[in-house]
């Protein structure tokens, strides 16, 4: 390649970098707008959306205080419940579906295939199809607490996880497990000592998809949880939207920001895995 075309390509790449950097900044503007509006009085949010807070509109930390204290419901509880539900659900989904997927892939009997196809089938069922009946069933069985709702998530979210795990297990050579069996390992030991470590990449991609889903989910917990006692962050935000006569947009924005922070931290900490996981998961799916 000639010097000239190399130089040309270099300028082209620099220009491209700059263009993309500008787009990136634009891409983050909504978040920036959100942050400045958490410091404005409610009536300024919709009329002076893009202005920085000024002497008139600035309310300091008031929105955060109001967002965290409104409506006789402690904000820390919603955080606690959101975390509990997300962590428990994801953990349960990962453990139980990977075990079942290994069994399905290895035993491969007629029943297993039926279960497999049922799970795959459940992936395409929209939530509206079961929302009314699911909330009733979940209530009858007392699955309406943050400690038991993970069972609902395990049931309704099993499809994708089973699909991805079975696909992955089928690609693992049998020899390693055979060796373990010859060494005298029972199925459980084989699973936990041999198979489980090998599943790590899929675990990460499934885990991330489930965490993102559960943390952000609104309708399922809204319809299933015992509303007297438990609210997640999205439900709490929705309550703030429709209470006390006037929508307090400032406080809403503050709560929204507080709800985003944990996810963003989580993302920045493990973004490498997340991006890899999404790519791997999608290519399999």
């Amino acid at each position, binding site marked *: 390649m000639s010097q000239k075309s190399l130089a040309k390509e270099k300028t082209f790449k620099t220009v491209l970098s700059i263009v993309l950097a500008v787009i990136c900044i634009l891409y983050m503007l909504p978040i920036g707008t959100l942050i400045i509006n958490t410091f404005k009085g409610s*009536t300024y949010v919709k009329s002076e959306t893009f202005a920085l807070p000024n002497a008139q509109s600035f309310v300091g930390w008031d929105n955060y205080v109001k967002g965290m204290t409104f409506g006789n419901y402690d904000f820390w509880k919603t955080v606690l419940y959101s975390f509990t539900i997300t962590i428990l659900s994801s953990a349960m989904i990962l453990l139980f579906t990977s075990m079942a997927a290994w069994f399905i892939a290895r035993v491969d009997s007629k029943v297993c295939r039926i279960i497999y196809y049922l799970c795959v089938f459940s992936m395409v069922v929209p939530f509206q199809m079961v929302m009314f009946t699911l909330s009733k069933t979940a*209530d009858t069985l*007392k699955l309406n607490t943050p400690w*038991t709702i993970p069972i609902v998530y395990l049931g309704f979210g099993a499809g994708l996880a089973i699909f991805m795990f079975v696909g992955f297990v089928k690609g693992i050579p049998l020899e390693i497990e055979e060796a373990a069996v010859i060494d005298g390992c029972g199925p459980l030991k084989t699973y936990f000592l041999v198979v489980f470590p090998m599943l790590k990449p899929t675990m990460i991609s499934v885990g991330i998809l489930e965490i993102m889903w559960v943390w952000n989910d609104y309708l399922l917990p809204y*319809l299933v949880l015992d509303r007297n006692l438990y609210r997640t962050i999205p439900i709490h935000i929705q309550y703030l939207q*429709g209470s006390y006569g006037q929508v307090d947009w400032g406080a809403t924005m503050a709560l929204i920001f507080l709800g985003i922070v944990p996810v963003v931290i989580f993302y920045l900490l493990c973004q490498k895995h997340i991006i890899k996981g999404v790519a791997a998961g999608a290519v399999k799916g």
Partner: protein
Amino acid sequence: MKKFLALALVLCMVLALAPVAKAETGSVYWLNFKPESDEVLQQIAKMYTEKTGVPVNVVTAASGTYSQTLTAEMDKSTPPTLFIVGNQEGVKTWSEYCLDLTGTKIANELNTDAYNLYDENGKLCSIGYCYECYGIIVNVDLLEKAGHKLDEITNFETLKAVVEDIHARAAELGFDAFTSSDMDGSSSWRFTGHMINLDYVYEERAAGKVWTECPATITGEFVPNFKNLYDLAINNSEFDPATFAAGGHDAEGEFKADKAVFFVNGSWEYGAVSEGGKNVAMIPYYCGVEGEEKAGLNCGTENCWAINANAKQADIDATMDFLYWCVTDPEASRILVDSFGVMPYKQAAASTNGFLAMANDYANNGCYVMDWATNYQPNVDAYRAAFVSALNAYNADQSDANWEQVRSAIVDGWAYQYSQVNG
């Protein structure tokens, strides 16, 4: 080890599924529908529990979600024992779930049967626990500052003159005529649920009889009068009507901060707007109907208690005792009356609500009461949603075509929703 692990796993599942053991004594679960009274009800519940040991659980549905919350909660294993059935449509839907309150000790405490709701078989489904009035709240001090007097305003003509004068001089006065009229869920009911009542009531009066059930159609004869008052409200405030659709204003805040003289709202606002000794009054919806000098305030209620007939007997008894205590205990009824305005029960504390007192004054002076015909709105949430949407379009562009859409939402919307519910 294996067995233990497996056992633990299964045990986890079983434990999770096992129903939580419950005490045998009754308890009260009140599904409240007014977010603004949540705080007071929580306080009352706590008082009662401290006094008697009976658990009282008050849950408040997010505003605008009462019917869906009630539906979901009723289907649960611990349904509400006390819920709100505030209109005929509610009676229709929930009558199966309503305990017949005829002759019960709470019903015997009532001092009027004006706010009772019966189903088609004559079962007393729900009883009012307070009543309210609405109209146009006026900041009398500001009005006088602008050089007008409250008794100048006796009909639409005079109201319009005052309002337009204040609006024209808003910059000089430092305040405007009306507060904002947001159309988001937190505020639109002031128009789609309240102000429109004037059309329904005058239709009743024109026909010479009060509705006792939801009519299949309405004529919309007085929709032009609704337009009179509505136009006055949206076009004489500090804000561009086109911005009302997005919400984000704070009408109550504007009124409290002396930024506007007129505020379309009701008696429940009394505590908030009279704060700091502000001189406030409430006037009727003057809208250009003949003889409206004799109009009074809009009085009625949608606050009616119903007891869940399908609850456990112990819970029903506990709920009944709790309600009786609410309306007879001096301390409790004082707190409730201060929040609700007035409770129509023989032994309840006396009302201190200035607006309700004004409603009585109007009635005593021979003015006709505007009843809450708005309670008959069929399929109410859907009806109002379409109504709001039409008002939004009109606010953005006040053309005749757009007003025709509003009229259609009021009149055709009524017929359509009626056919949906009864078809």
